[in-house]
C-alpha cells in the first residue's frame, strides 16, 4: 500500500516536473518583445502644429549613460519633418541628451542641438536625403558611477506634406 503511494506520487511529481520544464522551453523559443517597445510614443512636441503625422521611421532602443548611437532615416522632398527625443530619468540623471544631424553621404553637419540648446528639431526637406542622427547621452553622475544603468530612449519622428503659405 505504502509502496503504491510512493510510486503514484513519484509518477505525478515527475510528470509535473517534466511539463513545467517543457513549458519553459516552449516560451524560451518565442522571442520576447523589446523592453523599450513603443517608448518613443511617450515623446511629445512642445510646439503645436497642424497636419503632422507619425512617421514609421520612429524608433526606441535601450541605452546606457554616456552611450552614443546613430540612426539613419530618409527624408523626402516636399515634406516637413519634426523630431524629438524622450529618455528615462535614470539614464539622464539631470543631464541632457544631445543630438546632431548630418548628411549620411557627405557627412556634412546640418544641425547640432548643443548650438541651440534644443530638445527637438524641425525642417523642410527640399530634396530627398538620407540623414544620420547621432545621439549622445550624458555621463552617469558620480554617485552612480559604480552602478551600470540602462534605460529607454525614444526617437519620435513626424512628417507632413509641406504647406504652401502666402500669396
Amino acid at each position, binding site marked *: 500500500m*505504502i*509502496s503504491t503511494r*510512493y*510510486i503514484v*506520487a*513519484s*509518477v505525478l*511529481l*515527475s510528470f509535473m*516536473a*517534466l511539463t*513545467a*520544464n517543457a513549458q*519553459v522551453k516552449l516560451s524560451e523559443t*518565442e*522571442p*520576447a*518583445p*523589446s*523592453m523599450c*517597445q*513603443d517608448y518613443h510614443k511617450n515623446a511629445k512636441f512642445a510646439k503645436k502644429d497642424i497636419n503632422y503625422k507619425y*512617421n*514609421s*521611421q520612429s*524608433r526606441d*532602443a*535601450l541605452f546606457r549613460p*554616456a552611450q*552614443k*548611437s*546613430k*540612426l*539613419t*532615416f*530618409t527624408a*523626402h*522632398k*516636399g515634406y*516637413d519633418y519634426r523630431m524629438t527625443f524622450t529618455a528615462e530619468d535614470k539614464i539622464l540623471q539631470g543631464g541632457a541628451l544631445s543630438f546632431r*544631424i548630418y*548628411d*549620411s*553621404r*557627405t557627412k556634412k553637419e546640418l*544641425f547640432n542641438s548643443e548650438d541651440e540648446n534644443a530638445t527637438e528639431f*524641425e*525642417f*523642410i*526637406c*527640399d*530634396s*530627398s*536625403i*538620407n540623414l544620420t542622427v547621432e545621439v549622445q547621452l550624458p555621463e552617469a553622475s558620480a554617485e552612480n558611477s559604480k*552602478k*551600470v*544603468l540602462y*534605460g529607454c530612449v525614444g526617437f519620435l519622428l513626424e512628417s507632413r506634406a509641406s504647406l504652401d*503659405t502666402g500669396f
Partner: protein
Amino acid sequence: MKKTGSYSLFLFSVLLAAISFTSCGGGGEDDHNNMSDTLAADTGEQIIEEYYQIPLPGDFFASLRALGVNGKSDLLNPAENISNYTTSAEKAVNFGVYCSDLFYCSNFNQKADILKYFENLKRLADDLGISSVVTDQTMKEIENNLGNTDSLNRITSTVFYDATSSLESSGQGSTLALIIAGGLTESIYLSTRMVNSYKDGSAAIQLIADQKFPMDNLYSYLNKYPEDGRVAQIADRIAPLHEVFNSLTETPKDTVNNRDGRKVIGSETLIMMNADDYKKLTVTAADVRNSLTQKTAN
C-alpha cells in the same frame, strides 16, 4: 526491498522536480539593470550602434495616394504562392512582401482576400518563430474590420512593429533585414505598376526615383550581417534593382537655408529619372520581385 525501491524512486522524483522548478528561472521583472552582469564585460571602447530605418510600405503608398496615384487590381503576390516558400530566407522575404501587399490593399482600397493574406502572415510568422505577432486575437480583429481600411492599415503596422521588436530583441536582425528587403522590393514593384507611364516633372515619378534613399539604407542594413548566407543570397537577388537606382543621374541644385522661419534641409543634388530610366526600373523591379516571390530552381 520493494518498499526501499519505491521510496528511492520517490526521492529521485522529488529531486527531479526540485531541479526542474528552480531552473524555470526568474524573469517577469523589469530587469534593465540585471543586464549589467553580462554587458559590463564590454571593453573600455565605446561601441556605437547604428540603426538604419526604412519607411514602412504604408507610408510610401500613402504619399503616392496623396499625389493622386490610383491602385490597380491583380498586382499582388498571389496568396497561393506561400506553398513555394520552404527556406527561412524565402519565408522572411515574403513575410515582408505580403505585409507590403496588405498596406497596398488598405491604402488603395483593393479588393483582395485580406483574411487569406493575414493567414499567410500568421503561417510565415509561426515558421519564423514569431507567432505572437499574428495571434487568433489579431485574426478576430481583422475579421471585424474587413471593410475598414484605416483599421487594416493600423493592424498591419502593428504586426510589422511587433515582428521588428521581437526579432531585434532576440538578436535576429538578419531575419528582420530580409523581411524589410521583401517589403521594400514589393512596394517599388507595385508603385511602378500603378504609375505605368512616365511623365516629365511628375511628383510621383520623383518619389519613386527617390526610393534610391531607402534602398541605400536597406543595403547598409544588409551589410551588417556579412556572416549570414541568406542575407548575401537575397542581397544578390535585389542587386540589379539597387544598380538601377545607382545609375540615375544626379544634378546639383540651389541651396536654400531657410523658409517660413524654418530650416531647409536636403541633398545637394536632385535624383533625375528620364523615360528610359523609368522603363528600365519598371522591368528590373518586376524581374527582381518575381525572383523573390516565384519558385526558382536554386
